[in-house]
């Protein structure tokens, strides 16, 4: 088995990363200089779902606040250490309290906190909303792979460690996910969705994605789940609704018996030895 490389996406990942690094560093400064026509990204990206964009905007809001407060406090400190460095042996005025000032720096942060909380609640309600949907995918995490089942059809995708199973979902459609785990806790995380959720044994976690652009996106287990945690990848392929329908149809056309046996085979490989083919990943339990 070879570890698959990133599919070509027009711009290489390397370039994208450099752009992002430059954006994160340069844009806040540029925004300050140009009195900010656009809000900088602060290192994040808007992602490809409707909720990932809400999260991104919340991120920007928090970042603007943090940048302003951080800069203000650092400037105060800088002023203090430059202006009030020791010049002689005199003893300064021993002042200790200034009630109006103390009230100011207590009440203003409280107001800021409630502002942040209000913004949080607005976005949170969008992100955790579960509208009724026509498409449902059951996602099951196991050591060390993923199984995507499509209720109402015979489509099942299973893959482990280096096989990178692909979760196919339609674009511009609400897709309901039921997330479970068969053994330990795993983390279902798709970077371009700006979202993660634990796959818990004994709990069905439910959430909804509404992808707004097609493409293939990487997903990964983010919660430590044992030896091959680092290799528990999957892909999310967002396709047009017609492509999605024809993809589902390939499973329905195949005889149900062969589909079931394919799934059976895939399940059995889980129980085979889990040593990945990647030789550099020197492994071996204990």
């Amino acid at each position, binding site marked *: 088995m070879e570890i698959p490389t990133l599919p070509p996406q027009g711009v290489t990942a390397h370039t994208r990363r450099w752009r992002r690094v430059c954006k994160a560093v340069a844009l806040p400064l540029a925004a300050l200089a140009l009195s900010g026509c656009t809000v900088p990204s602060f290192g994040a990206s808007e992602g490809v779902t409707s909720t990932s964009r809400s*999260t991104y905007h919340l991120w920007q809001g928090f970042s603007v606040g943090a940048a302003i407060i951080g800069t203000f*406090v650092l400037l105060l400190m800088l002023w203090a250490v430059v202006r009030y460095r020791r010049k002689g042996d005199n003893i300064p005025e*021993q002042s*200790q309290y200034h009630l109006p000032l103390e009230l100011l720096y207590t009440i203003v942060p409280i107001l800021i906190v409630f502002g942040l909380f209000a913004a*949080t*609640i607005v976005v949170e309600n969008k992100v955790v909303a579960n509208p009724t949907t026509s498409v449902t995918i059951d996602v099951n995490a196991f050591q060390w792979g993923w199984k995507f089942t499509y209720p109402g059809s015979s489509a099942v995708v299973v893959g482990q460690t280096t096989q990178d199973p692909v979760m196919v979902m339609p674009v511009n459609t609400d897709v309901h996910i039921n997330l479970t785990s068969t053994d330990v806790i795993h983390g279902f995380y798709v970077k371009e969705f700006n979202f993660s959720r634990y796959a818990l044994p004994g709990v069905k976690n439910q959430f909804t994605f509404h992808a707004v652009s097609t493409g293939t996106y990487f997903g990964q287990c983010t919660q430590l789940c044992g030896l091959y945690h680092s290799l528990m990848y999957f892909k999310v392929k967002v396709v047009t609704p017609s492509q999605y329908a024809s993809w589902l149809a390939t499973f329905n056309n195949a005889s149900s018996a062969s589909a079931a046996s394919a799934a059976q085979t895939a399940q059995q490989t889980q129980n085979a030895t889990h040593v990945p083919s990647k030789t*550099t990943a020197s492994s071996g339990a204990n």
Partner: protein
Amino acid sequence: MTDVLEHPIETPSHGHEEHHGPSGILKWLTTTDHKIIGLSYTVTSVLMLVIGGLFAEIIRAQLSTPNGSLVSLSQYNELFTMHGSVMIYLFAGPFAFGGLANIIVPIQIGAPDMAFPRLNALSYWLYLTGSITMLAGFFTAGGAANFGWVAYAPLSNSINTPGAGADLWIGGLLLTGFSAIFTGVNLCATIFYLRAPGMTMFRMPIFTWNMLVTGILILLAFPVLTAGLIMLYCDRHFGTHIYSVAGGGVPVLWQHIFWFWGHPEVYILALPFFGMVTDIIPVFSRKPVFGYKGMVFATLSIAALSLGVWAHHMFTTGVVLLPFFSIMSLLIAVPTGIKIFNWIGTMWRGEIWFSTAMLMALGFVVTFLIGGLTGIYLASPPLDFFTHDTYFVVAHFHSVVMALVLAGMAGLYYWGPKITGYLLNEKIGKLQFWFLFLGTQVFTLPLYLLGLEGMPRRMAIYPHDPQWKMLNDLSSLGAAMIGISTLLFVVNVAVSWKKHPAGDNPWDGHTLEWFTTSPPPHHNFYRLPQIRSERPTWDYNHPGHQALAHGKHAPAVPAEKVSTS
């Protein structure tokens, strides 16, 4: 306030000359003197810092290539588990409340020793035994614990993590947990009952205040962890099903128990270091701490809030009430902000002396500001969904804990001369500061970007994403700088060994520990000054420069007052 200082109180001289204990190794083994126990704690915990730091350097070396092969996947899991465990359980807490607080708190309140000296000794021996027990996992056939320092069920059960390493981890943590509980009892009892005449609660130094609140938090939080660990052990060996679905248990229960301890623990670790900085900044600014009472109430409200925020570690479980834990977590920013403004207010219009201790304290404030601001993001559930278990979180808490290391170093440079009687070299100290401070930023800032690029934590290899190498290398450079700073500290201790006698009060200190000798005698004091404010030593040395009463804003400096006696 009285204008005329009276004679210092002479303590009865018996009890000092009478003390003829054993000497040498036997003295160290049998002592109940809080200063010697505290020094043992300090040396042991700094050793733990070095061990945990070595694990960190190996982790950084492994991540220097996408397919790192320095260690195996299972060894990597052991390394980051033990790195976190050693740093959190065996370094940061014991260093603060077992080490410096143990030595300094009784002296700051004018007490001869801790309230329960033998219990204090037991604390240290439990801590040492627990540390050895936990680290002994590396010498078992299955290796050390490898389920992360949080030991999430069901990964930590006997099916997924068989082997003695995990049991030794549980045992070691139980022992150090009991040691912490006993120290908490001791701190509370000492501070409530052994204060010198005149040392009212609102005249206690902020460090002592913070240690009192830390002691209370220890008593509230650690028993919960102890219970949780015993249940985990029962699940592993006695067939109970408290955390396993199969027997009707609930895996997430472990997370609730762990974080009900774990979030107060964050403040159990942080409050002592806040206290150190709050004692250091006023001394080197030649001013009383700004907003003393506000500072105390900020500490109390941090402690109160910290008991109601644990589930912000569990937002992505999908089974906790998001808005409640979000607002509680956000609110902690308010008292923390008050502290930062108080530190700046203390420096304002002061006369700042940039000693190594002061530089380290300033480095703490800047680093903690970064860690604090990024913590606010994580209190917002949507942003937590976005960054949870990525390097953004790793970067956030490393900004915070590296700030604590800076504060700890400030504490060592500030109180070290009091404990040993000798000053540390300031030139090497300042070099150490720059390596530590800049190294910390070079180490953490790339990790924030890595997290935003989607790199999950606890990854031994990242073959799919070789583009993460550059930021990882930058971070490793910072880790190397931090390593060099630690070496510089060791060099400094060796170079300055018994070279420059410190005298009783090298920094023109404010609090009682600077009134006694360096090192203090057995039972700490031959005499005490009148305690009329939270700065008895300053008042004694500068009778004309007492602090302004609450609410008075900038009146003229009062005339020199008579200090004859």
